[in-house]
């Protein structure tokens, strides 16, 4: 049956704290610089580690596009997906890993560590994050269900903001 649209989902303070804990643990164990978590639609969910000097929102949208494009390339060569991607730079590199087919974990690292170490540590973090996201999505209402939203009863406010 066709879905009405992609259903909405929410991230509460407790989810956010748990996600950050896992990301910070990963950074500490892998000596990577920073980590970002991006959903498949390109929205930035969280970032941890060193302060980043680029625009994180633009980075998130490009990450999702990169991952989606590679997913299609995987299918073309007969693979169901590429669960992880590695982009190697001269000084800075990035490692991207799928989490529960819902979000993408991006880790930026430099010569202080190695791709092998990052890959090893990311593997464990992906398992931990997948548990958090499975719980979050289970909590989200099923598509087509009565989705009483966060803005329930706010029609007047919406009209006021955008003109009736």
């Amino acid at each position, binding site marked *: 049956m066709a*879905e009405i*649209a992609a259903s909405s*989902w*929410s991230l509460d303070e407790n989810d956010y704290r748990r996600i950050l804990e896992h990301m910070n643990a990963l950074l500490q164990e892998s000596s990577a610089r920073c980590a970002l978590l991006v959903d498949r639609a*390109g929205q930035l969910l969280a970032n941890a580690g060193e302060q980043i000097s680029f625009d994180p929102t*633009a980075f998130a*949208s490009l990450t999702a596009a990169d991952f989606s494009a590679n997913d299609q390339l995987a299918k073309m060569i007969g693979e169901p997906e590429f669960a992880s991607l590695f982009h190697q730079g001269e000084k800075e590199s990035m490692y991207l890993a799928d989490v529960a087919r819902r979000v993408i974990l991006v880790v930026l690292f430099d010569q202080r560590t190695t791709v092998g170490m990052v890959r090893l540590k990311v593997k464990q973090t992906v398992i931990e994050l997948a548990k958090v996201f499975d719980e979050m999505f289970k909590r989200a209402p099923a598509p087509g269900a009565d*989705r009483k939203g966060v*803005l329930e009863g706010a029609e007047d*406010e919406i009209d006021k903001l955008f003109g009736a």
Partner: protein
Amino acid sequence: MSMINYASREINCKLVYYGPGLGGKTTNLEHVYQKVSPDARGKMVSLATETERTLFFDFLPVDLGTIRGFKTRFHLYTVPGQVYYNASRKLILKGVDGVVFVADSQIERMEANIESMQNLYDNMAQYGYDLTKIPFLIQYNKRDLPNAAPIKDLQAALNPGWPVEDPAKQKELPDPYHAGERLIQLVDDQWVERVPYLESVAITGEGVFDTLKAVAKLVLKTLS
């Protein structure tokens, strides 16, 4: 897939501008970028060819205000309009919350509009999304050109409507953007629903914000 972030008090939604090549999708985003205060928008990203044709997408995040203490952040995307970029065009629709179809009003672009609209329905269906149920509107662009087709012809070709099966919805619904017109009405004993449409001249900015506000409002209402 709208994402409600209670930790940062933000509602994030994804809007996609779809339509035939050279119809004005990127121009819509460029106008929004130029007119919105820098505090309320992020960086605009364009993945384009050397001749400034969209290769993958344009992206622009904008804040459209606060409701119930939540910042409403809209991520605006365009798709490449050219027919042969369908593989990348389809990717952009993933997780979309609202769609604007930017039609090129010029008579000679009618076929291209129809082909692109069909392609939109096909790509949405492949994700399992039902375009008759999600926030969707049509922007008839380039209304200033002498060879612009009459709205009536464009509506007949691109927005003929679909039958309303739900008895609860079988009643006249006024079109909020055009006095005297209706979004749901009886046509030859059959209740028919059409999507809202707006007219624009994106290059001068006319109708650009009206379109953005209209689709943003439809998206937020799905959360209310």
